[in-house]
């Protein structure tokens, strides 16, 4: 990946690569709680049909996933498997945290067994608020993620620099 690291990728090529990544997002559905059903509705319901956007909810193995949708309450017992799942996913990988529980603990803010926010364990790209968010909200989150990917600089990502989106 010397070419990418040296950041000398020609612009059209970068755009092609970003287009490929943003248009084809295989999502690992990490359904945890109530939000999992709204995520299922967004992915499965003909009314929302996330496949229109190029998000393919096929993979059942984390190895083939491009982004993971953490939808629901993350408990302390669940935290290690989530970290492992994230480690199993191949780069470049993205995370959508769906719902108040995954964002910050939500209604279980004072529970003894709930991790208050999945961002304590893995880095999150897009937060979708709600308890649970409507499927439309998740679709918007996915569109935001696609915008972010489309403007991404792979060189920066490979070098581990902070990613600035939008500007």
């Amino acid at each position, binding site marked *: 990946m010397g070419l990418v690291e040296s950041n000398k990728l020609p612009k059209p090529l970068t755009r092609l690569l970003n287009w490929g990544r943003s248009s084809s997002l295989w999502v690992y559905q990490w359904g945890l709680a109530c939000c999992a059903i709204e995520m299922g509705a967004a992915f499965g319901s003909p009314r929302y049909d996330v496949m229109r956007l190029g998000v393919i909810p096929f993979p059942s193995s984390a190895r083939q996933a491009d982004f993971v949708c953490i939808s629901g309450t993350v408990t302390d017992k669940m935290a290690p498997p989530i970290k492992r799942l994230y480690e199993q996913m191949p780069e470049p990988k993205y995370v959508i945290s769906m719902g108040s529980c995954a964002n910050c*603990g939500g209604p279980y803010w*004072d*529970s003894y067994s709930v991790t*208050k926010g999945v961002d304590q364990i893995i880095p999150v790209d897009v937060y979708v608020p709600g308890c649970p968010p409507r499927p439309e909200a998740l679709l918007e989150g996915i569109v935001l993620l696609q915008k972010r990917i489309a403007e991404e600089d792979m060189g920066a990502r490979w070098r581990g620099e902070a990613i600035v989106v939008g500007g």
Partner: protein
Amino acid sequence: MVAAEPETPPPTPRHGELVAALGEALGADLVSHAYSATEAWVRVAPAGWLQAGRVAKEHLGLSYLCFISGIDWLQNPGLGGEKAWDPDVEASDPPGDGPGRWKTGVAGGGTRFQVFARLADLTRHVGLTLKVDVGDGPSDPDHPGAAPRVASWVPLFRGADWHEREAWEMYGIEFEGHPGLRHLYLPGEFEGFPLRKDFPLLAREVKPWPGFVNVEGLPGDDDSAEDVEA
């Protein structure tokens, strides 16, 4: 807490028959009983717990195990939410609370921890709640290290396995004869028994609960505020 009035009649004749039959079979091990408009309670002595379950299942037709769970009668207003959690205040012994002085519920009780279980007869559609005193646990001044314990119902009901594991995990109640009291819900290294009243919720220590909406002082707040209609 006020136990249901002893003169409350059984909700159905069958409830009365069940309690009477249990009393006959257990003798002095049946400590007390109570009725409400829909439900019947029976409190048995710890020694009679297994026998009570056996009689209920095999002779009284109460073959359906609804649940087994525990309860901790320690009063802990800090946890109840009326005031913010104050870690400096020891919650264990508020006045009027302690060994021998526990304020307990329907059908009474003598110890801090109780186990209660509900059995039902699905053909006659009656159910019975059984209670048993299991000890004071850490509040016992003589044996502060002793865990509350009672006989396991696993030999009677296979389904008791998970319920008792849960009760052990949540209250530290040990069930004698249970094949393996392992953690059910919590990760193996979890310390403490979360449903005990003196188990602190750390998040509340860090950030006090803003308060209960319906106990906020209303203008001119006094007891007559209860009569305001919706």
